[in-house]
């Protein structure tokens, strides 16, 4: 039977029920909804086309085109699923899987203790998803913990394809180097490379790997060159031998020479260190691919990756109920890559640390860096206890949501109980040099 396109879109629209708005952004509103037939929760991202945007309307937003183009082709347990698309009254609607937490939230939730099996499991899922993306000749270009969503069953899903594009098309067209959130941006991008490939995503994953072990972003700063400096401090300034062609990149300059320091993650196992080194190789050609990383001994060695269902979950503090959830459905940089300014560094909103203070700049050795990390850890814990107080008062205000509230309280109690035990272990994990085998 022949169905008119308009009619088909109406049919799709009627499959879902929009329940409430959970977020608003410059180019999209996000709604919570359900698939009527199954009762499955979904997120509906309504892309505003009629309203003119800051950069001037240009029809369907480029990042929306990119996201749809990529997600229509990608079907993998570790990639967010685009269930449907429809247009209604001149607006474009994307129906996505509903996922209510992300890895950033879990990393920042200091009540959660990461065991090495957890880290391994998250890395495994990230790399599996990324391998699928790369296999399809797509690069994500915005890998960061905030874009790794976590499903209720523990599965990790790569989301936000607003910057994704296909690569390796043989046309050798120049690409923008102003991609990927700065903290996770590969060195070749910071140096202005316009020809690059899947390796930029791997660098980001390497940063995420480190962040899962350290619980703070590895190379965090607001300036490109401080970030670069931090890389050199932590990994040693690369020589022309380490990275042939480095000096030919557009924004290259005479770097300050740092010697290769003793390893950053002394507490980790040999396999983990080897893998992280391969991901954070300065030369993109020497960096591992997602596929190679998946067959690395790290994933075969004990302890085995934790089953997704047994991974720690994020228990949501009520105070940022409204603002936190939807944010992840937006693209971090909405505009066209070529015309837009650099994607802004993620603001350290919510529970964790303020962005700029997470790692203090210009600590010349890794041990110094770690001490500052430790200091910040403590700060974060103080912040946490502050938040706890807030939660309680908030709880009273929210009494009418009794059911939700009760559930939440249940969570809170659990996490409070949990909190007492692990404090000591946090200290141990942070004390890298003295107890080498704790974090792995």
């Amino acid at each position, binding site marked *: 039977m022949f169905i008119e*396109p308009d009619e088909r879109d109406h049919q799709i629209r009627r499959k879902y029920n929009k329940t409430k708005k959970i977020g608003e952004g410059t180019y999209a509103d996000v709604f919570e909804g359900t698939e009527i037939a199954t009762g499955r929760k979904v997120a509906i991202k309504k892309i505003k086309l009629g309203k003119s945007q800051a950069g001037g309307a240009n029809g369907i937003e480029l990042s929306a085109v990119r996201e749809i183009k*990529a997600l*229509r082709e990608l079907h993998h347990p570790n990639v967010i699923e685009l269930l449907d698309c429809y247009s209604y009254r001149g607006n474009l609607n994307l129906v996505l899987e509903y996922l209510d937490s992300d890895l950033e939230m879990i990393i920042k939730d200091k009540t959660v203790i990461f065991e090495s099996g957890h880290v391994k499991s998250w890395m495994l899922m990230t790399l599996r998803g990324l391998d699928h993306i790369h296999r399809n000749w797509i690069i994500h270009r915005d890998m960061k913990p905030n874009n790794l969503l976590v499903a209720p069953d523990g599965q990790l899903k790569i989301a936000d394809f607003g910057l994704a594009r296909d690569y390796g098309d043989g046309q050798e067209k120049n690409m923008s180097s102003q991609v990927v959130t700065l903290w996770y941006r590969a060195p070749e991008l910071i140096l202005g490379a316009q020809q690059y490939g899947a390796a930029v995503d791997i660098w980001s994953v390497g940063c995420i790997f480190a962040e899962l072990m350290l619980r703070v972003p590895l190379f965090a700063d607001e300036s490109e060159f401080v970030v670069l400096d931090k890389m050199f401090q932590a990994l040693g300034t690369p020589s022309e031998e380490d990275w042939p062609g480095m000096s030919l990149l557009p924004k290259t300059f005479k770097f300050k020479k740092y010697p290769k320091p003793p390893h950053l993650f002394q507490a980790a196992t040999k396999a983990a260190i080897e893998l992280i080194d391969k991901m954070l190789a300065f030369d993109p050609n020497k960096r591992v691919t997602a596929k190679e990383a998946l067959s690395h001994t790290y994933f075969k060695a004990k302890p085995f990756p934790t089953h997704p269902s047994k991974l720690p979950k994020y228990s949501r503090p009520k105070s940022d109920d409204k603002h936190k959830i939807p944010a992840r459905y937006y693209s971090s940089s909405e505009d066209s890559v070529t015309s837009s300014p650099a994607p802004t560094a993620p603001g350290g909103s919510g529970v964790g640390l303020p962005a700029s203070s997470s790692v203090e700049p210009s600590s010349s050795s890794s041990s110094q860096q770690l001490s500052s990390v430790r200091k910040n850890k403590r700060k974060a814990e103080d912040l946490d206890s502050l938040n706890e107080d807030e939660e309680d008062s908030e709880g009273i205000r929210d009494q009418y949501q009794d059911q939700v509230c009760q559930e939440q309280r249940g969570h809170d109690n659990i996490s409070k109980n949990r909190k007492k035990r692990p404090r000591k272990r946090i200290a141990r994990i942070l004390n890298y040099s003295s107890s080498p085998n704790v974090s792995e």
Partner: protein
Amino acid sequence: MSQTPANPLESTSTSNTTTINSAPNNAYNTSVTSATTNPSTISTTSTIQSSSNSKKQLYEQTSQYRNWRFSKKRLKDLREQANKSGVERVKKNMTEDLKLAETAPPKSQSSSPIQHYQNSPLPQSLQNSPLPASLQNSPRPSYTNSPRYGGGGGTPEDVQFLTADEELVICQYYEMIIQQIPATGFSEQLRATAIVFMKRFYLRNTVMDYHPKMIMLASLFLAAKCENSTIGHEEFRALMKKTSRVDLAKETLFQLELALSQSMNYEYAVHHPHKSAYGLYLDMQSYYSKDIKKIQKIYEKSKEHIKQSLLTDLTFFYQPSQIAMGCMRLASRSPKIAFDFDAYIREKFSGAQSKHSKDVSEQQLKDLFEILDDIEKTIESYTPVDKKKAQEYDLKLRSCKNPAKDPTSYISQKRKAIEKEEREAKRLKKQAANKAYQEELELVFLNQDNSFKSEH
């Protein structure tokens, strides 16, 4: 449903296509990877070797393979269905429009059919259809004025509608134009994508609803976004004004872009033969290192054939890598080159050195050659659309356009009015609700105020 053909290849001439379909692609994958590190085809990355048929090929997971692959018969049916339902819809709308016209007061000519729908690529002489002056201010919709049925007075039943084949000719004409538009910023790939977008659009729509010229522009605009060459609408519209003399309103462009996306099922990723041809070019060099000059010629020539293939329906029948191989084979046959392409394929798939000899049977090779033969035949028999014919059908199209898509027609004005009314009603309702809420709020504050006073 039309968008998910169950087994799109069920009725092609080659009966067991599904099995061989993956064979050439497969075998070809591995060889390309071995020849070069360049990512030359989408399937090069496939980790599955040709022996494993259990797991799906990477290309088989693409939307192009899943949803945009049809048998020849199915494609014809789809086009006929789109045409048939279009004709019914237009007839219905015309009848309604006529009814409205009879009751409506005469409207002035200046407001009739908007400029850009009227602006067709026809030569000036044809553009001003000979309208009798007496009819210029007639309240009757413009299509009944068409000279086709005696210049007025006809009913929708008298209208001569375009057939599916005639529609196709007009579309193909504009697809050809896409390749010819003199804009250096549009890469070969971008144009190819725009052509495929247009083809997909008209499987579900009819030219009576959307003029192909408009869809051509929307396709180019959207393809630019999809192929990483985004262009601002102002620049794009200026370019189109210069190159194809269409002054397109911004809103119309955006509207059409959305309609186009909708009809394509929001599937923006399109795969073309170009990359596969490049991969074959590299692979052949590794087999015949002495003939590199010849192979270079074959590759150059094959590009022309690929361009032609885009203007046929091959994209709906075969995989990009198969089309590329067909184009290379055809190119190597040209008398100036005379290269034995079949020998290369045999060497590759069943030669002594071949890695695939175990996996590729003689029957599969035979099937492959059959596919290639069909591709080559289609390309060889391709003839550019006759411009005169396209113009003739375009003229015919003027009398059978859907009045609901013409913003000045009675029917669309009525629809607009109804919509406006609905919006107004909704607004009033919201206003009333707001007012009631405000009053209630005031009451609460008033009470509070009173209680506050009484307490102190």
